[in-house]
Each structure stands twice: as structure tokens, then as C-alpha cells.
């Protein structure tokens, strides 16, 4: 069941044809196709924040739970997606993880179907805007405490949220989190000691002027094909659910809209891929009583040794690192069974 109150388009229709074959409604339809796979009770709606931003939110509840309600209301699980993603990427985790507790997933501010506001170019302010949107969202839904799970960029924001609002988080789960490490001083001379030719740096600098996914939007009508070509792995990860290119379509329509969250990400990152304000500097601000679990994919390039460094920063507190073998960066989609099992056991340990 979907309860949508679609925002009225303010700008109205333009008379010229769009360069990019995308629109809010195509995104909605593609997402609906994905969410059709959910077996349990699904409630999808926009949650309005005080500043008029709207966060696209899914609540999944076990349909058997209603018949035999449990005496205690359990801490809900909230999952935050990564860069360029959306709620659809959790499709293989929604059903298994909603068995014992309510499950909330939402599109981050500036991504997916949520509002796409203007992000400031200052890294701290951009981060603050995302984090406060999560807090307002939580307030609007009247969630008292939650198990917060963040993937990739979502992991960065979830950590930042947990630092600011530790009383709201029962357990922090970080899945292949981005933005923990410092940029090494010699990062510009990664593999070869002799340094890179100038022209490569020039090319990178040139692309650095644009938003990370500008290529997809600039490709216009070729965009969907380009995404399909560049990320066929997304179709393969979900091939038992969809035998066509639904997933890459979804990714395309998520990211072909006006860039917003991307701008925020660009503000928070530097030199493609490093955080300007790395989390390792701040993880000690997490209260020692807050348990943290870091989940890494075995094949991912994210270095699972970061988990040990987080543990170092948090002496005398619960910090655990789990490596899921055979999973790449999209841990939840690559090895869903293993991932769900790990998350479920963490949830069970909470209540």
C-alpha cells in the first residue's frame, strides 16, 4: 500500500523536450516495480520536515506480527543508503530484516525521491544539513531510539548523527563506511613513485570541476544505456528478482534528476574519494556506551583494517568488525543472506 501525496510541480512543464529521458514519475514507476517484490506490509510516504523538505520513507512491518502482536515494542531498525542510491537498493534486505521489528528506510536528503535542496559548499555545513534532516525525520516519525545502519556515504552520515544525537541510537552498524581514513599526504602519487603525468592530473582536475555523476546527466538520451554499460553488475546482483535492467534504470533515474545530494557529497569530499573531515578524527566523540559494529565486504576496496583503527580510538567500548566474504562494496546486495544474518544477530542483541 502506498500513500503518496506527490508534490505539485512548481516549475510546471516546459514546452521543449527534455535532454534527459527522466522524470519524477518515471522514477516512481521504476521504484514501484522494485518495491512490488516486498512480501510484507509496506507503507511508503513522504515525511515532511519543518523546513518543507520531504523525505521519501518506507516502513516495512511483518504482516504476521499484527496477528500475534508481541508484548514489547522493539527498537526499530533504520537503514541509510549510500551515494547515488535509494531505498530500492535494500530490496533484498527489507523482507528478512522486518521479522522481529519495524524497519525504516528512507532516501537521504538530495537523493532518490526525497527533496533536492541546495547544499552549501562548506563541508561542515553540508554534513550538518544531511544530519539534521535525519534528526528532523526521526522527530517527525516519533522514533525514540533506533538501531542505525549506514552504508558507504550513509555510514559517514550515520556516524556523524550518532555523535550529535547519541541518545537516539542503540547500536550503530556501519557497512563499508566511507570517509573514515585521512587522505595520505602522498595520495597523489599512489602507485608509481615517479608521480603521474601532468595530463592525467589535468584531466582529473577538469572532471573535479563537475559533480561526480555529471557524465550521466550530460549523456542525455544515452544515459540509461551508459549506466547499463558501466554498472552491469547491479543488474546481475538482483538478477533473481528482475531479469531485465530494472536496477540500472532505477539508478539512472535516481541520479539523472537535478543534482543535490551529489553537491553535498562533493562539498564533503576532496580529491575524488577522501573526506575533508575524516571520521577517524571524530569517532572518539561517540559515547563509550554506544556499541558499534563495522561490516566490510571481503572483496571491497574499503580497507577492513579501518575497523581496528576505530576500535583503537574507542577504548573500553564495544567495537566489532565483521568481514563478509565474497561481498564487494554493495555488501547488502552481494551477499544478502550473510548480511541479513549479521544484521539480524546484532538486532537480536539489542532487544
Amino acid at each position, binding site marked *: 500500500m502506498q500513500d503518496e501525496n506527490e508534490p505539485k510541480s512548481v516549475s510546471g512543464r516546459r514546452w521543449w523536450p527534455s535532454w534527459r529521458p527522466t522524470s519524477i514519475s518515471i522514477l516512481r514507476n521504476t521504484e514501484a516495480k522494485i518495491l512490488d517484490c516486498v512480501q510484507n506490509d509496506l507503507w511508503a510516504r513522504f515525511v515532511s520536515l519543518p523546513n518543507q523538505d520531504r523525505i521519501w520513507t518506507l516502513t516495512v512491518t511483518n504482516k504476521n506480527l499484527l496477528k500475534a502482536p508481541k508484548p514489547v515494542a522493539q527498537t526499530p531498525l533504520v537503514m541509510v543508503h549510500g551515494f547515488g542510491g535509494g531505498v530500492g537498493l535494500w530490496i533484498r534486505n527489507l523482507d528478512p530484516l522486518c521479522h522481529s521489528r519495524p524497519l525504516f528506510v528512507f532516501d537521504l536528503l538530495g537523493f532518490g525521491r526525497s527533496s533536492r535542496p541546495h547544499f552549501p559548499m562548506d563541508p561542515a555545513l553540508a554534513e550538518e544539513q544531511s544530519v539534521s534532516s535525519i534528526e528532523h525525520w526521526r522527530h517527525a516519525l516519533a522514533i525514540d531510539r533506533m538501531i542505525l545502519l549506514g552504508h558507504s556515504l550513509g555510514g559517514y552520515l550515520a556516524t556523524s548523527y550518532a555523535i550529535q544525537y547519541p541518545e537516539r541510537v542503540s547500536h550503530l552498524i556501519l557497512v563499508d563506511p566511507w570517509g573514515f581514513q585521512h587522505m595520505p599526504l602522498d595520495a597523489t602519487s599512489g602507485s608509481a613513485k*615517479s608521480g603521474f603525468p601532468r595530463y592525467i592530473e589535468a584531466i582529473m582536475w577538469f572532471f573535479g570541476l563537475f559533480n561526480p555523476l555529471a557524465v550521466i546527466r550530460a549523456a542525455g538520451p544515452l544515459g540509461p544505456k551508459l549506466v547499463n554499460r*558501466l554498472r552491469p553488475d547491479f543488474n546481475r546482483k538482483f538478477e533473481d528478482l528482475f531479469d531485465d535492467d530494472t536496477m540500472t534504470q532505477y539508478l539512472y533515474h535516481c541520479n539523472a534528476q537535478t543534482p543535490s545530494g551529489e553537491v553535498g557529497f562533493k562539498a564533503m569530499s576532496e580529491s575524488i574519494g577522501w573526506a575533508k573531515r575524516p571520521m577517524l578524527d571524530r569517532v572518539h566523540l561517540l559515547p563509550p556506551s554506544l556499541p558499534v559494529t563495522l561490516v566490510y565486504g571481503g*572483496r571491497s576496496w574499503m580497507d577492513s583494517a579501518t575497523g581496528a583503527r576505530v576500535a583503537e580510538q574507542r577504548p573500553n567500548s564495544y567495537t566489532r568488525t565483521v568481514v563478509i566474504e565474497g561481498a564487494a562494496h554493495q555488501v547488502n546486495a552481494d551477499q544478502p543472506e550473510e548480511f541479513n544474518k549479521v544484521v539480524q544477530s546484532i538486532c537480536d542483541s539489542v532487544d
Partner: protein
Amino acid sequence: MFDLTKEWNLSFAGCGFLGIYHIGVASCLMEQAPYLIKGATKIYGASAGALTASMLASQAPIAKCCEDVIETVKEARKRNLGPLHPSFNLVKVLRTGLQRDLPANAHTLASGRLCVSLTRVSDGQNVIVSQFKSKEDLIQALICSCFIPIYCGLIPPSFQGVRYVDGGISDNLPQSELKNTISISPFSGESDICPRDTSFNFHEFRFTNTSIQINLGNMYRLSKALFPPEPKIMAEICQNGYKDAFRFLEENHLLKLQYPTAGPSPPEVVNTCCCKPIVMETTKDWMLRRLRLLREWHWWLDEQIVDNLPAPIKKVFCEACQQKPGLYAHVSEMLPVRVASYMLLPCTLPVVSAYSVGKRFVEWIPEVPADMRWLAGIAGDVAGGVYRQTRRGGPADKTSDGSLRNCMSLPPSLDNNSLVERDSQLSGFALSALDLSSHYRNIPTGPSSQDSASPLTLCSSPRQICFFVGSQEESD
């Protein structure tokens, strides 16, 4: 966790001149975990990866292959425009190298185990071949797999009568999605053995199956894939391959150390290094050394770069970096001389081009009939297709579904005879029309003596098989 109880495969990604990385990986596997190679059910490879795969499958000496790669790189770097210079003939260099270094029974060793990824010219589909009748046959398959159109030449080579180009265009890392396949790629990404850049960027793209993370290191590697770097950097890439493979073995607990001492290189290797004694240095060398601002005596190659590699390969690199034959090489490397040679390029290039085009033409003469027939066949196909389209208004889509239609450049509603006719055009003169149609019919009935002659029957991907079953039905 990598499961040794089931069967496993290796898959080498195509990567142009970065193939030296595969050599490093292969040398590590051979040294530290030879059972991984011996026990592998299939060894897949595309482009440069296929060369290393063939070397592993046919048990060719690895140092020799390393030498060949270095030689090719040197050949490519010799001239101003690098590999784009008209007198650099990659196919010829490869063929000579393979002919020299593959053992005489390479095809028997490789058949069934070595799987070479190819792209069929007629429809752009990926084909994986693993049966080779002779050493020549094997070499031809490898050359097809390395043939980057335009970069290597204009007319694609043929393997067993069918025209193919670089396998990297359709599938650069065959079967990498299988869990029991160890995928090896010189680009950092999500392959099993690949460089780990210390970047936390999650932007990534796939180049026909190969996962490539977007970061400076990979951009650098991509730029080097077709325009090879100097031997020193090649040595570094090779060593990186060794280290990455070693790390993979370590992390997956696959190391079966014969040596009680842990560590990448057994101690005795250190002493057997390549270097010639210092007394061999001539006055001229000494002068040059002085001119180069007094570097240490092993200046041509930093020891650390090749430290981990096995001794024979180390030696190859040492020699490769050392060779600066005479004063001429040094003079021609000076900046003014190089600037002058670039400025003279507009004058010299036409002459050199004309010479090498002539040379290539002479070499091409034996293949002219086959190539001409192929070109004529294409022209005929195109014309026939246009004619049919106009007459029947596009009958091509009637009987076949999407995937089939992509596989066929010929409308399937034709009768049997014309299909066979066209196939014989495609296959050149190697197979008679009757032979070929009998191959098609043999496919579903399992292995027969004829099977080894046809590359088409050996495709391991289900999609390919489905296509051939389909085409057989339609030709009947």
C-alpha cells in the same frame, strides 16, 4: 572464503601492456602456490590476459615470457609515436614471440583448459574457445584475442575460419562473476587479485566485466595500457602483481610454504641477483654515470623495485633496464635531439610510413585471397540485407527473439541453402560448406571427432549454446 574442495578457475583480465602485472601474479602463484595453477579446471583470459593464461596452461617458462613482454615494450617505445608508429607491428612481434616460446605441444596442454575470450566480428558477441588443433591454431587464437581494431591493424585476423577481434571488447574478465573463479586484474577494483589503492572512492565503472575504480592510480594505469611505460615502471607493475597475489594467498590461507621462513622471497634469491660485477664498467659508462650526477652503481634499476620477484624474472628486468647500447642511445635521448626528431616528424613520417606500409603489404599478400573473400562476403551481406529489407519490409524479426536477433547478422527466415552458403563465405576456404553444416548439427549430440574443429561448439556460456541450438533449428 575460497573453497578448495570444489573445482576452481583462474581468469586474467585484458589490459594491454599492463600484462606484465599478470606475469608478476603468475610468478607468485607458481612460486608460492603451484597447486592453484595445476589444479585449476579452466584458465580464462582475454587479450593480454590470454597470453599469460596460455603461458600457464602450456607450462612455458615464465622468465622467457617476461622477456618477451619487455622486448615488445621496448620495440613499442623505440620510436617517436610509440606503438602508433606505422613500423611497429604488434601482431608480428607477438607472433614471433609466441612461436619462439610456447612449447611444441602447447596446444595439447592448453586444449580444454585454456579458454580464450574473443569477440566475433560478424555480430559482436563474445565467444570463448578452448580447443586448439595445433600450436599455430593456438597462436592464432591468442592473436585474435589481442587484436585491438585500428590500433593493431584494419583487417581482423581469423581463427578457424571465423573473424575475431580483441576479447576485451565483449568480455574482458570471462566468468569473473562465478564465485569459484579467481579473477586477476591490474586495475584496482573488485577483482580477487588486483592492486589496492588507498583510496576510499566508491565511484566505479565496469569495462565489459572488469571492475575499475575511478581514482588517480587507475587513470594512470589506463593511460599506460596501450602506451607502455619504461622498463623500470614495468618492473614495478610486475612486482605489484607479485605482492597483490601474495596478499591474496595470505588472506585466503592458500599459502603452502615449502620454506619454513615466511616472507615473499626465499633468502637464497637475494644472492643470485643479476648484476654484473662492477669491474665490467668501461670508461664510457663511467663518463656517462658521472654525467648522470653520480648515481649509485646499480642506478639502472632500484633494487627495491624488484626485490620480491623470483630470481629469473628479476634478472630479466635488471638486464632490460640496464641495456643502453652505446653512445647513440644516450645521444638520442637528449632533449634537443628528441625535440629535433619530433620536429622532423612531418618529413620523416611519410617516408617511414610508405616503407612500412609496403612491408606490411608484402607480408599481407599470402592472406589477400581470404581477406578479400571476407570483405566481399560482408559487402554481399550488407547489400543482400538491404535488398531483403526493402522487398519484404523487414522479415528479420519475425521468428527470433531479441537475443537471437543480436546473434545473427542474417535474417533467420532464409532457407537452408543460403545459410550454408553464407557461412562458407564467412569461414573462408578452410571448411567446406558441407563440413560446416555438419558441425552445426553435431552440437547437441555431445562430443565427436569433428567437434574439435569448430570453435563454435565450445562456447561455455549458456547464452552461446542457446544461440547455436537456435540457429541449428532454423537451418533445418
